[in-house]
C-alpha cells in the first residue's frame, strides 16, 4: 500500500472535479439513485419471471426456464436487500455521530 494522504481521501467527498474545479455533488440524489437502481433491476427481473411463469402455463416455455427466471429474480431481490441494509447501516452510523 502506498502512503495514505488524508487530503486524497477527503477530496472525492468534497467533489473536486477535473482541474480542481468544484462539482456540485448532491448526496441525497446519489443515495436515491443507488437505491432506485437496485430496486429497478430487481423489479425488471421480477417482471421477466412473471412473464416466464405465464408463458409456461400457456405451454410456450419449459418449466426450467420459468424456474431459472424466478431464481434470478430471487437473487436480484436478495442483492437489493443487501444494498438496502448497507445503506441503512451507513445512515445509522452517521446519525450516531457526535456533534
Amino acid at each position: 500500500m502506498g502512503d495514505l494522504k488524508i487530503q486524497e481521501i477527503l477530496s472525492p467527498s468534497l467533489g473536486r472535479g477535473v482541474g480542481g474545479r468544484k462539482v456540485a455533488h448532491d448526496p441525497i440524489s446519489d443515495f436515491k439513485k443507488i437505491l432506485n437502481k437496485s430496486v429497478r433491476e430487481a423489479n425488471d427481473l421480477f417482471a421477466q419471471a412473471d412473464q416466464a411463469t405465464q408463458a409456461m402455463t400457456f405451454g410456450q416455455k419449459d418449466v426450467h426456464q420459468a424456474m431459472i427466471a424466478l431464481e434470478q429474480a430471487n437473487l436480484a431481490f436478495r442483492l437489493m436487500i443487501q444494498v438496502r441494509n448497507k445503506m441503512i447501516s451507513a445512515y445509522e452510523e452517521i446519525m450516531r455521530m457526535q456533534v
Partner: protein
Amino acid sequence: MNLFNAMEVSSSGLNAQRTATHAISMNLANIHTTRTDEGGPYLRKQAILSSSPIPSRFSGILAERMNPGLLGVKAEVRTDDTRNHEMIFDPTHPHADESGYVTLPNVNLLEEMVGLLAAVRSYEANVTAFNSAKSMVLKSLEIGK
C-alpha cells in the same frame, strides 16, 4: 448482468437436453410407425448439439459481446440417420409393398433408452451447475456480514 452468465449457459444446456429428450420421445412413440405424412416409414430423429452464443435475450447477447468465448449450446433436431430399415414379410399389412414386405422405422429401442439416460443425466448435471452458481452468488452476498 454479469452475475447471471453461468446461469444463462446452464439454461442453454437445459434447453438442449430437453430438445434431445423430445427427439428420443418422438422416436420411442413412433417405434412401430410404418407410414408418415411424407410417405414411407418413420425416420429416426436426432438432436444435434452445437455450441452457440447464448441466445434469445438482450442480456445474453450483451454478455457474449462483453466476454467473447462465453458459449452456450443449442440443439437442432435432424433426421439424417441413414442406416437401413428392417423389413418384415407381412402381406396382410396395409402398408406392405407389392412383394409383401413392410418397412419398419430405423429406431433401435436399446439405443434410444441409453440416449435417454444420457440426456437425463446431462440435464441433472446442468441443474447442479446452475445450483452451484446460485449458491456462489448467495455466498458472495454474505461477504462482510
